[in-house]
C-alpha cells in the first residue's frame, strides 16, 4: 500500500472513531454538557487534559523550535509543564471543591459581583478565541500537507468533525474523544522518535538516547557531535544559552502562570468526582504531557543532526564534503514539493552548502571555501517532525500515523477551547445574568447553539486569519497570566481580597499587558501602529512582549492589594465559602 492510501486509512479511521465516541456519549443534561457529568476518573481526565493542552504547536512545531534553538527553547518546555505544578498546588483542588461549571462562575461567586464575572468572561473569550484561531489553522495545514486538499477544505472538514462531537456531547463527548486523540497523537509522536533514537544511538528510549553516545562506535556523545557539527558551520551551540537571562526567566514564568490560568485547562478539573481526584489528576495530566515534552528535545536534536549530516557528508571546506544536489534523498525531494525545504545553488557547484551565513566570524571561512551564501534558503521548522519518519526511512504507516497525530492534536485543543467559550456564553452570560429562569433543557440547547456559533466563528477566523495570527498566542498567555491566574489565586489564599480589589487587579494587569504587547506589535496588531520596533534594544529591561505576562500578574497583585485595603472586607458568607473550599470534605454540616 502506498503512503497516501495509508494516510487516508489512518486519518479516516481516527475520524470514524471520534464519531462513534460522539454518538455513544451524547449529553443529556447541562451537567453532561459542561462537566461531562462530573464523574471522570483521574487517569482518564489526565489523558484528556494532556490532549486538551497539547496543541498543533506542541505536536508539530515544538520539536522544530528545539531543533533550531537548542537550549534557548527551554522556556517553552519548562513553562508549559511547570504551570501544572501551580495548577495542582494552588488552584485545581479548591476550584473543584467549589464545584462550578465555568471559571467566571467561580470568580463571580467568590467576588460576589457580576462585574467581576463579566470581566472574567471577556478575558476568557479573548484568550480562547485567539488561541483557537491557531488550532483551526493547524487543522487546515495538517490536512493540506498530508491529504493534499485545499487549506479551506481542511478547515471545513475539521469543523464538521468537531461539530458532531462537541455539539452532541459537549464536555462529555469532548472528554472521550480527547482520550482517543491523546492515544493517537502520543503514538504518532513517540514511534518515529524511538526508531530514530535506535538508529543514532542504539538506545530505544529517546530521553536516554539523547544523553548517550553515537551508535557508530566513535564513542562521541550525541549532543557533543551535534554541537561540533553545527558550530563548525557557524551556527550557535546547541546546549548553551544565547539570550538575556532575565528575558528567559520572565518568559518561563509568564508561560507557567499563563498555563495555570488558561480556562480551557482549568475546566477539565471540574469534571472529576472529588478533590483528591483533582489533585491526582493534575499529576496524570503532566505525566501524559511529559511523555511528549521529554521526547521533543530528543526529536529536535536528532532530526537536526540527521538534517545536517545529510547535507554535510564530509569535512567542512572539502569539496566532496557537501552533498551533490542531484544525489539528494527522496524525502528531500518530497518536502521541496511542499515549499518547506528550498535549495538555491548560489555558487553553481551543484552541491549543497548549508551554513549560518549570518555569522560574521564564519563568513570569511565560508568565502575561502568558495561558498557564496547559505543555499538551504528555506528550512521550515515544522519539517523536523513532519519529515522525521521519512528521514529515518520508516514504513509508510508511520508517516500516516504522524498525519493522524497532527490532526488529533489540533482538533482536541480546538474542542476544549470551544467548550470554554460556549459555556461562558450559555452559562455565565445567558443563564446567570440575562435569563436566570431559563430551564435546564433550554440552557442545554443554548449551550449547543453557542457551540455551533463558536465553531463557525473559529472556522471563519482560521480561514481568514487576521494579520496578527502568529502573535496572538502571546496575547492568550499574557491575558491568562495577568488577569485570570492572580484573581483565582487570591480568591483561595486571601480571605481579605474583595470585589473592588479583584476588579481593579484584573483591569490593571490586563491593561498593562495588552498595552505592552500593542506598543511593540501594533495597536490591535495593526501593522505600522506600533510605537517602538519589536527589538531587544527597545524592550523594557530587555523583556520581550511574550514575556510580559508575569509582570502583568505582578501589577494585578499590587493593584488588587492596594484597592482591597482601601475598601470594605468581603461579607461573612464569602469568608465562610473560602473556609469551605479550603478543605476537601465538609467542615460543618449545613
Amino acid at each position: 500500500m502506498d503512503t497516501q492510501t495509508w494516510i487516508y486509512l489512518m486519518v479516516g479511521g481516527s475520524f470514524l472513531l471520534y464519531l462513534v465516541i460522539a454518538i455513544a456519549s451524547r449529553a443529556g443534561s447541562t451537567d453532561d454538557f459542561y462537566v461531562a457529568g462530573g464523574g471522570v476518573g483521574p487517569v482518564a481526565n489526565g489523558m484528556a487534559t494532556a490532549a486538551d493542552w497539547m496543541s498543533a504547536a506542541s505536536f508539530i512545531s515544538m520539536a522544530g523550535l528545539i531543533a533550531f534553538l537548542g537550549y534557548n527553547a527551554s522556556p517553552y518546555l519548562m513553562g508549559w509543564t511547570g504551570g501544572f505544578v501551580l495548577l495542582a498546588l494552588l488552584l485545581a483542588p479548591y476550584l473543584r471543591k467549589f464545584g462550578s461549571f465555568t471559571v467566571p462562575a467561580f470568580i463571580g461567586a467568590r467576588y460576589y459581583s457580576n462585574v467581576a464575572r463579566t470581566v472574567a468572561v471577556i478575558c476568557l473569550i479573548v484568550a480562547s478565541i485567539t488561541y483557537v484561531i491557531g488550532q483551526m489553522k493547524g487543522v487546515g495545514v495538517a490536512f493540506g500537507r498530508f491529504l493534499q486538499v485545499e487549506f479551506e477544505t481542511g478547515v471545513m472538514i475539521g469543523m464538521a468533525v468537531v461539530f458532531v462531537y462537541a455539539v452532541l456531547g459537549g464536555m462529555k463527548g469532548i472528554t472521550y474523544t480527547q482520550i482517543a486523540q491523546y492515544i493517537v497523537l502520543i503514538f504518532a509522536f513517540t514511534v518515529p522518535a524511538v526508531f530514530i533514537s535506535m538508529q543514532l544511538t542504539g538506545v530505544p528510549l529517546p530521553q536516554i538516547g539523547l544523553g548517550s553516545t553515537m551508535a557508530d562506535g566513535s564513542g562521541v556523545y550525541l549532543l557533543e557531535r551535534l554541537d561540533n557539527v553545527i558550530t563548525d558551520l557557524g551556527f550557535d551551540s546547541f546546549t548553551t544559552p544565547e539570550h538575556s537571562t532575565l528575558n528567559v526567566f520572565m518568559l518561563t514564568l509568564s508561560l507557567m502562570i499563563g498555563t495555570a490560568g488558561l480556562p480551557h485547562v482549568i475546566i477539565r478539573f471540574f469534571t472529576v468526582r472529588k478533590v483528591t481526584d483533582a489533585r491526582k489528576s493534575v499529576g496524570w495530566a503532566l505525566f501524559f504531557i511529559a511523555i511528549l515534552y521529554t521526547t521533543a528535545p530528543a526529536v529536535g536534536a536528532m532530526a537536526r543532526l540527521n538534517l545536517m549530516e545529510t547535507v554535510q557528508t564530509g569535512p567542512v571546506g572539502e569539496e566532496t564534503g557537501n552533498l551533490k544536489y542531484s544525489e539528494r534523498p527522496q524525502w528531500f525531494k518530497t518536502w521541496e514539493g511542499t515549499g518547506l525545504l528550498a535549495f538555491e545553488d548560489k555558487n553553481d557547484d551543484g552541491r549543497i552548502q548549508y551554513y549560518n551565513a549570518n555569522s560574521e566570524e564564519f563568513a570569511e571561512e565560508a568565502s575561502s571555501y568558495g561558498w557564496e551564501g547559505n543555499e538551504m534558503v528555506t528550512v521550515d521548522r515544522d519539517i523536523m517532525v513532519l519529515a522525521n519518519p521519512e528521514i529515518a526511512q520508516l514504513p509508510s504507516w508511520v508517516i500516516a500515523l504522524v498525519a493522524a497525530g497532527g490532526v488529533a492534536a489540533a482538533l482536541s485543543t480546538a474542542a476544549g477551547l470551544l467548550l470554554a467559550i460556549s459555556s461562558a456564553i450559555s452559562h455565565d452570560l445567558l443563564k446567570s445574568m440575562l435569563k436566570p429562569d431559563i430551564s435546564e433543557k433550554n440552557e442545554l440547547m443554548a449551550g449547543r447553539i453557542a457551540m455551533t456559533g463558536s465553531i463557525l466563528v473559529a472556522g471563519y477566523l482560521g480561514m481568514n486569519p487576521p494579520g496578527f495570527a502568529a502573535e496572538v498566542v502571546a496575547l492568550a498567555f499574557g491575558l491568562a497570566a495577568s488577569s485570570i491566574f492572580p484573581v483565582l489565586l487570591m480568591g483561595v489564599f486571601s480571605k481579605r481580597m474583595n470585589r473592588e480589589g479583584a476588579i481593579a487587579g484584573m483591569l490593571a494587569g490586563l491593561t498593562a499587558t495588552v498595552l505592552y504587547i500593542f506598543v511593540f506589535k501594533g495597536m490591535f496588531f495593526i501593522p505600522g501602529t506600533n510605537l517602538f520596533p519589536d527589538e531587544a534594544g527597545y524592550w523594557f529591561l530587555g523583556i520581550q512582549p511574550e514575556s510580559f505576562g508575569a509582570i502583568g500578574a505582578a501589577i494585578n497583585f499590587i493593584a488588587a492589594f492596594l484597592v482591597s485595603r482601601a475598601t470594605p472586607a468581603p461579607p461573612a458568607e464569602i469568608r465562610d465559602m473560602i473556609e469551605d473550599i479550603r478543605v476537601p470534605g465538609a467542615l460543618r454540616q449545613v
Partner: protein
Amino acid sequence: MSDRPTGTAADYWRANVRLLLKLLVVWFVVSYLCGILLVDVLNAFSIGGYPLGYFFAQQGSIYVFLFLIFFYAWRMNKLDREFGVAEKE
C-alpha cells in the same frame, strides 16, 4: 463532624500552606535556578552526554515537576485524614 473546633481547619490550612511553599521552593530551584540562572555553571558538569544545566532545563525539571505533584497529592491525602477533613467516599 459538626462541632469540630475551628482551630482544626486553621491548623490544616497552615500545614497545607507550609507543605506547598516547600514544594514551590523545589519547583523554583530545579527550573529557575538550575535550568536558567545557574545554567552556565552547571553545564561544566554532565550526566552521561547531557551538560547538567541543559539537562535540568529540558529533562530534569519536568521529572521533578511530576514528582512534586504526586508527592503533594499523597501528602495532602494523609493530611486530610489526620485532620478529619477527608471527603466521604
